[in-house]
């Protein structure tokens, strides 16, 4: 085990900018010194963050080239959150998130080619091209979707936790053993569904962690313009009897260390938790956002805290990462994403028959049943029973 030197605390000027963006005056103390993480593990996180960054850069490019349609929200700047949180839970713990979901899919282990092909609207995509950028699902990696309606995933997260606990305790007669991770943006704090979900999670003792990826903005609305108590979001959780935590989401080691502690506790006590994860998106809300609502100076402060650069510098300062090794990492992710793009280009659009598949598991009328995407082996989903086919009968 190697203990890294702690992250360099931000300059006083940076603290001021943080205070302005999050409406908070306290400065988060670096938590990394508290944990020992094997260097290899930290290098894996560095690789994972580099992969997401590279993927998103290529995504923006592909969007300009019109290979990607619709809305597309990139995760650049927030990589430490998905990577650190995913590392802090077990693979069998379910995860659900909002529409800014490419990072979560990759952090969970989805091959970038399935993620990219989904955005290209190709049959090779994780949802056969029927979901798009906002709807990344991965059954085998326990990712229960990206969800496009702000806040919609918060009751779903409660339901995932409910099911985990019910399966363990009621069906198998064992102690509850899993926790659900539910990510949401700061904008989702203002949705009714979020408050109902928190009340239910608190009331029913559901092991779910609500991680607010607080990047200071919902589209062009600074958090304090849309959300009360922006400087102390944990008070919202307190109102539901749920423990709240504030974490520096720009430091993957901090994210991991704090989230591990919270997840262990949720698992052991089978209770919910709430996390105000302070982070920043470097790019616009979606592909068409000139970012008039914030200053260049503000962006620069957060760019100086880039989670990738931060971990890279710390590993290098500890003598654990050579320049060549880092360059090799960068090249590896570049190659991987480039191959993913080529694979997606080559994947055909979904055949038109796909229009009528996956509407119902049980075939009827024009609906022909359902099958897994190639990512999961393409097996046909079992249908319960057949009902009459009126169309056929009448022709």
């Amino acid at each position, binding site marked *: 085990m190697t203990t890294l030197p702690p992250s360099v605390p931000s300059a006083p000027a940076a603290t001021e900018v943080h205070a302005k963006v999050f409406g908070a005056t306290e400065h988060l103390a670096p938590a990394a010194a508290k944990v020992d993480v094997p260097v290899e593990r930290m290098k894996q996180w560095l690789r994972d963050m580099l992969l997401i960054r590279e993927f998103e850069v290529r995504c923006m490019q592909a969007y300009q080239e019109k290979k990607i349609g619709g809305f597309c929200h990139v995760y650049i700047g927030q990589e430490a959150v998905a990577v650190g949180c995913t590392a802090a839970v077990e693979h069998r713990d379910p995860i659900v998130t909002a529409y800014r979901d490419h990072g979560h899919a990759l952090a969970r282990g989805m091959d970038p080619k399935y993620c990219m092909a989904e955005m290209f609207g190709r049959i090779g995509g994780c949802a056969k091209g029927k979901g798009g950028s906002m709807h990344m699902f991965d059954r085998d990696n326990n990712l229960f979707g990206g969800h496009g309606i702000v806040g919609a995933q918060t009751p779903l997260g409660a339901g995932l936790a409910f*099911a985990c606990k019910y399966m363990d305790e009621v069906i198998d007669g064992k102690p509850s053993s899993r926790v659900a991770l539910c990510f949401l943006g700061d904008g989702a704090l203002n949705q009714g569904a979020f408050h109902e979900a928190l009340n239910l999670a608190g009331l029913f003792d559901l092991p779910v962690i609500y991680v607010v990826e607080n990047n200071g903005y919902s589209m062009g609305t600074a958090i304090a313009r849309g959300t009360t108590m922006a400087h102390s979001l944990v008070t919202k959780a307190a109102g539901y009897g749920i423990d709240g935590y504030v974490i520096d989401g720009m430091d993957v080691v901090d994210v991991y260390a704090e989230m591990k502690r919270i997840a262990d506790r949720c698992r052991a006590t089978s209770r919910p938790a709430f996390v105000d994860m302070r982070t920043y998106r470097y790019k616009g809300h979606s592909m068409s956002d000139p970012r008039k609502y914030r200053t260049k100076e503000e962006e620069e402060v957060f760019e100086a805290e880039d989670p990738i650069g931060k971990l890279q510098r710390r590993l290098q300062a500890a003598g654990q990462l050579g320049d060549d090794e880092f360059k090799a990492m960068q090249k590896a992710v570049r190659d991987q994403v480039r191959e993913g793009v080529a694979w997606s280009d080559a994947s055909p659009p979904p055949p038109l028959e796909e229009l009528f598949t996956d509407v119902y598991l049980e075939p009827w009328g024009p609906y022909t049943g359902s099958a897994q995407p190639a990512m999961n082996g393409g097996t046909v989903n079992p249908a319960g029973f057949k009902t009459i086919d009126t169309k056929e009968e009448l022709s």
Partner: protein
Amino acid sequence: MTALREIEFRDALREAMSEEMRRDKRVMLMGEEVAQYNGAYKVSRGMLEEFGPRRIIDTPISESGFAGMAIGAAMMGLKPVVEFMSWSFSLVAADPILNNAPKMLYMSGGQFGCSVVFRGNDGAGGQLGSTHSWCVEGLYSNVPGIKIAIPSNPYDAKGLLKTSIRGSDPVFFLESERMLGNKGHVPEEEYLIPFGQAAVIHEGTDCTLASWGRPVHFCMEAAEELKKQGISCEVIDLRTVRPLDVGTVVRSVRKTSACVVVDQSWSFGSPGSELASQVHRHCFDDLDNYVHRVHSADVPTPYATNLEQEYLPNARKIVEAVRSATYNL
């Protein structure tokens, strides 16, 4: 010979849920007042005693929250039954029930279905006023990805609810508070009723009456009256509107050459308008008249008894529609 066993509609619903809960631990019931209070309409009476509070779950008044929670649980593999005290209250859960449940399988490319049943009271008739009298089938039948059952009697209610719970797709199950006390024959033996199979409940030769849910009874009343006037009606209970068994109606209309569709939702863009359109298409050369439709009046549901009765489909309106559709007889 022993008399046929007759039970109330609400008991048929409870038997369906209890039987399915006994055979599959993944099935559980949640909703407002379903456990300790025995259900606002006593449908779940006694279930808490049998299954305990882990499987019969009282929720707070958070339709959006618990509907979404049930869908999340269903994605994980549970089979929740969610009781809406009234389908009128499902409107505040529109996003989970219309945007999540029906679309999850599709937008995940076949990875996550959700086997969840939403059930509760639907429709006017109890002087509950405009906000509490929704016939949600008018809105919800528009949405692909869900199935909708609207039973008219205890036998169908039990068989269809068991099928709903056992199936793999999301189901909206629409009951009527007006009918929960209705008694009907329900055998002791287990049975299931498949979706998409209409029942011809009264045979006739002059006009086809097609309906579902509570107005089926108004159709039967009208058929009695019309018989006295020398008009023989064939009454068909569709039982489910998604899937909709157009075939049975078409076969009947090819025999009778006349058709009246009775649907208690509003007329504009309704299951009734869909059925009428399909009958026109498939029976273009068989019909002697256009397909007539009897709906609730195109106004918010009134409170006063006389206005509410005039608002709903009733036997008188159905008789008039049949006489118009068969004027040439």
